[in-house]
């Protein structure tokens, strides 16, 4: 178990390096010079001297390889550099905005789990009944509607028309409700479908028949056996989607004026604020890696077959 985790942790290093290389490459393939973008955003027609001065300030006058190595060395010390736009350390800018994003993503995760587990399970158990139709409709709806549009609809009905929630901003739990639902909807759609399919699959397994012939109570079969083994793919899905949640937050944050990291990232892209973009991509990569690792560990607990595999012949 311990060696497994260490091994997994070690694979993070090369993946991290590749992620830095790709981000760095992508940013520098773009035809836009960050120094020019900075001045364009300030509404200034820059003179050649101003551009040269900015480039030097940003370290863009050095050869690409030097820039890359420098940034990797910096990052390995957890120093993400200084934002081109605000002139403050990137980490300071990011960490002041992260709590808002974490609050939003956790809230949507809770909503997604609370809604999709019972819904997906019941839909599987009562196939082709009302609840199943409803879950299928919700999955279809949630998977196909763009989240910014869903957000506007929620604002329009629940905020402007019914006056139940504020349109934008952060502060009270009321501010959190609409953005969290918006962000949770695609996850609900996905998990409900996943769990439903998995429940249906498990119902075909011989162990269910066996349990029935043993005369075990139906509720107990469903709750203790089917749900537990059916939930496994959903947990994998959760892990894979933690990172997605963070990126999905970009749009939701913009729509609801949520002062989080995603919104800040969008601005950084427009301004070609390279250190911020880099920091975001690395954090997202880190989140994907770590959440996958955690999921694998949880899986091993829930389904011991995984950790036993390969050990049976020892």
């Amino acid at each position: 178990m311990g060696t497994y985790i260490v091994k997994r942790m070690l694979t993070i290093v090369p993946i991290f390096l590749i992620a830095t290389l790709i981000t760095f490459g992508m940013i520098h393939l773009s035809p836009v010079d960050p120094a020019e973008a900075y001045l364009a955003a300030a509404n200034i027609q820059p003179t050649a001297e101003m551009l040269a001065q900015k480039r030097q300030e940003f370290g863009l006058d050095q050869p690409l390889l030097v820039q890359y190595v420098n940034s990797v060395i910096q990052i390995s010390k957890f120093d993400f550099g200084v934002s081109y736009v605000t002139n403050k350390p990137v980490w300071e800018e990011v960490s002041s905005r992260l709590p808002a994003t974490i609050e939003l993503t956790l809230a949507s995760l809770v909503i997604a789990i609370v809604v999709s587990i019972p819904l997906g399970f019941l839909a599987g158990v009562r196939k082709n009944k009302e609840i199943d139709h409803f879950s299928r409709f919700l999955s279809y709806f949630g998977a196909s509607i763009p989240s910014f549009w869903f957000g506007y609809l929620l604002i329009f009905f629940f905020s402007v028309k019914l006056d139940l929630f504020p349109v934008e901003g952060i502060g009270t739990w009321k501010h959190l409700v609409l953005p969290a639902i918006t962000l949770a909807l695609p996850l609900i759609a996905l998990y409900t479908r996943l769990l439903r399919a998995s429940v249906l699959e498990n119902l075909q397994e011989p162990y269910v028949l066996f349990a029935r012939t043993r005369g075990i109570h139906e509720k107990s079969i469903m709750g203790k056996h089917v749900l537990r083994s059916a939930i496994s793919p959903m947990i994998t899905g959760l892990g894979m989607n933690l990172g997605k949640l963070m990126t999905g937050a970009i749009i939701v944050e913009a729509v609801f004026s949520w002062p989080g990291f995603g919104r800040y990232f969008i601005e950084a892209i427009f301004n070609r604020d390279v250190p911020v973009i880099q920091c975001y991509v690395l954090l997202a990569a880190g989140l994907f890696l770590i959440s996958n690792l955690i999921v694998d560990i949880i899986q091993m607990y829930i389904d011991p077959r995984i950790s036993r595999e390969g050990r049976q012949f020892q």
Partner: protein
Amino acid sequence: MLHTKNKKLVLLIFIIFLTVSIVLIGCTSQSVEKSEADASTENSHMITFSWPRDVGEMNPHAYNPSQMFAQSMVYEPLVSYEEGGELKPHLAESWEVSDDGKEYVFNLRQGVKFSDGSNFNAEIVKKNFDTILDNGDRHSWLGFIPLIDQTEVVDEYTFKFTLNEPYYPTIQELANVRPVRFLGEAGFPEDGDTSEGVEQPIGTGPWVLEEHKVDQYATFKRNEDYWGEHPSVEQIKVKVIPDAETRVLAFEKGELDVIFGEGVINIDAFNQLKSTGSYETSISEPVATRILVMNTNKETLSDIKVRQALHYAFNKQEIVESVTSNLEEKADTILSTNFPYTSNVEATTIDYDVNKAEQLLDDAGWKMPEGKDIREKDGKPLEIELMYNSAESIQKIMAEALQSEWAKIGVKLNIDGVELPTQVDRFNNNEFEMNFYSTSGAPYDPHYFINIVATEGFGFREAISSYPNKDELLSQIATVQQTTDENERQELYTSILGSLQEQGAIVPISYIRQIAIYQKDVSNFSFPANRDAHPFTGIHIGE
């Protein structure tokens, strides 16, 4: 055994979730009381406004990420730019310019205090100028900054600076929102250099920054010791709302009192809100011009006949009307006449005339081959590329309108949507055939625009390189900035602006105007003459 382990784990996960949620709710419920208190102060003495970005660090001498409207609420200039381009005394009560146009002496207004109670005098003016000049490179886009040779405190309320050479737009450039506005002593960092930030945003303006939550909101309260007319509104709250649709929804719900600016909401939303009759709307005087630049460096467009033909086939009136729903106004001259020195520009206005356009193209040798719908010359089809900023819907729709318009006379227009930085970059490097451009507008023009035209590396100078009178134009532009005689200056402007337009590479399309929508209880709203300034002078809310 495994069972209990599993149960424990599930329980653990559940508990973690529960704790996190409780902690989150705990965090937020603390602020509940506060925001309720906030709501109760939203009385008739506060205006709530929104802006797409955070107000920024509120440094009067810096650019990004500080927002100009907010800077202008707190910091004031020596000279203010008013209606019709008139330059009026502000923190300077009067000024004298020496006959050689090099010495500027300002008599400062007495009795002006910074919001911390300190005095506004020649010392602090010099201190501000000196830190700006120490970072002169950053401000070299302004003509007079690099020319300043000396700054001097003559007496307590007299300040003087000397230029290396005469530069008439100096006074006009002093009216800009940045960088020449004044920070109080206590705002300066220890080393006196404001380029890395300021200690506190202390200005002389009618508003004082009261509270600032990054990316959420900023509140400004009235400066009770303001030297000028006191605002009737006690507080202004600026909410940061990046999304235009959300802004409209917040306004409809009554969470905002005023929407103001350029492109802050989309045109359909503006018209829809206007049509409900529940709100007041208004549109400003022209603040800038949207123009189409044709690159005379490219073979096809180097022929004046082709340029004119395209202009004749451009149904400006209809396109501007339909694309902007009359929010913009059709432009016949490059600069609108509410700018200084623009009132008597003589340039032939080109009215929509398809026959004439076809005639001109025929004359230029671009003939329509049998059975085709694109003109050709020496076997080459008449194809032109127009670059536009894909994030700006007006540019996009106009590009599409031009595409179908010019197809009628046998011109194939390829349109290419790019991001703003790419657009600027390609324009500066002369990698374009046609491009949309907006002039900087009030308070920068006309001198700023012609200066851009004459400077290498900004796109225009290269774009007009096949003008036959190019050298004369450039020398006129160089002369006009050094003129000390008002009449000579006027004549030069008339001639420069006239011939720039006559050659047809710079096509005025429309005058950009600012919009405002406000709730019925808001009154006395007026647009700032300076495009970058705040619109809150005189605004009133409630009975």
